[in-house]
């Protein structure tokens, strides 16, 4: 599903990601830990095809990036820090726009609005909704096209426990869904993980199956 070999991504003369190699199988969840600036977001963006690798090889969904990126887009969903939505438009208008970009029907939009329990607020501009609600619309956007690979950058940050339960079916673990999640929460993150990657200053400091990782080792990364 995901194969990284010696991935390097630079920012100017500094290496944001250095020599990252790993392999994630279909249906597995990789959780990435690390302090701010360690490269978690960069890694997610490379996997989403938004950034290209400067060295090393990247293969996502069996396709090599960046040459076959066009075949991957549309099968990957990214939920980042920004909701990627227009504040002046309503939830429905935003989702309809994304649906058109992905060639999806209007019914799918209604389905998703119901799934995140926002049908009754779907006609109000996003700027009038609370941060938690906007986060739910963002989840709807990221999963609208039923991506095979989900890339989640601290997905639970803006959501209350009720909302978390609500979106669980959309972003939770499943046999058909491969996930890469970046997290700051050692115990919570670990419970979701099959595989753990710890990054420090762009370098992989820890790469192991989740069962064999102790929360204290993750805390070490932040020291």
């Amino acid at each position, binding site marked *: 599903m995901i194969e990284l070999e010696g991935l390097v991504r*630079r*920012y*100017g*003369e*500094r290496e944001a990601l250095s020599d990252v190699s790993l392999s994630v199988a279909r249906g597995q969840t990789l959780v990435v830990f690390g302090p701010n600036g360690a490269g978690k977001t960069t890694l997610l963006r490379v996997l989403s095809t938004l950034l290209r690798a400067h060295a090393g090889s990247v293969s996502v969904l069996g396709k090599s990036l960046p040459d076959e990126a066009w075949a991957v887009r549309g099968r990957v969903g990214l939920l980042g820090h920004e909701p990627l939505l227009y504040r002046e438009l309503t939830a429905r208008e935003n989702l309809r726009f994304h649906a058109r970009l992905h060639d999806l029907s209007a019914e799918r939009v209604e389905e998703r609005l119901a799934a995140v329990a926002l049908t009754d607020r779907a006609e109000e501009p996003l700027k009038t909704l609370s941060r938690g609600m906007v986060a739910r619309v963002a989840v709807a956007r990221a999963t609208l096209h039923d991506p095979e690979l989900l890339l989640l950058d601290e997905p639970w940050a803006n959501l209350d426990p009720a909302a978390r339960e609500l979106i669980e079916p959309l972003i939770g673990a499943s046999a058909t869904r491969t996930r890469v999640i970046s997290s700051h929460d050692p115990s919570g993150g670990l419970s979701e993980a099959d595989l753990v990657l710890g990054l420090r*200053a762009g370098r992989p400091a820890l790469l192991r199956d989740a069962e064999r990782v102790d929360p204290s080792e993750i805390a070490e990364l932040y020291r």
Partner: protein
Amino acid sequence: MYGRGLRTLSIATVAVMAIALGLVFFYAPLEAEQGFLQKIFYVHVPLAIVSLCGFVAGGLMAIQHLRTRDPRWDMRSYVTIHMSLIFAVATLITGSIWAKGSWGHWWVWSEPTLVSFLIVFLLYATYQPLRFAIEDPELQSRYASVFAIVAGAFVPLNFLAVRLSTEYLHPRVLGSSSNLPAKMQLTFLVSLLGIALLYLTLCKYELTAKHTRAQLRALRRTLVGEGDPSYRRSRSAVPSL
């Protein structure tokens, strides 16, 4: 290796320019109407030609940069445009002196070359501020290349448009470079060669200096490691290699 041939090039430049100067002052005949002042033509027009070629070359190098993503092409494009801008300023200054001497005004709108140069200068003067305003180095290089390509294509179009618009107003004040007597032609060609060599030599110097500095930084980094202050390079309009 950028430094190779630098000495040969420098010597050649000095030699040709010396010959050109000699020709300008002692060989080329005095022009009937404008007298001694006309000799500025041997500096002004070559400066203009070299500068324009430089801008277009910068655009071509930018195309290469976008195609190969090799930062060295961006460096070449940057240096070429940078140098051409300096030569463009020199063109404007020499053109202005010539206009003052011939027509009594420091600026004439009826000379299409001068006017086109002003517009081209105003456009390329934004190149460095544009680069400086983009912090991400890779983004900066890429956007600068796009600009260089658009601006490079603009240069000939602009000349065409300006020439069309001034043609019917006044006859060309400063004269064209065709229909010259043989002695003047020779002097002109040697001058052109001299200025072209000067341009190439200066570009090569700048490229060598920047390249060496980049190598030095890379060496320092491997020695000092992560803590090296050069990693935290402040914002700069200059491409990094």
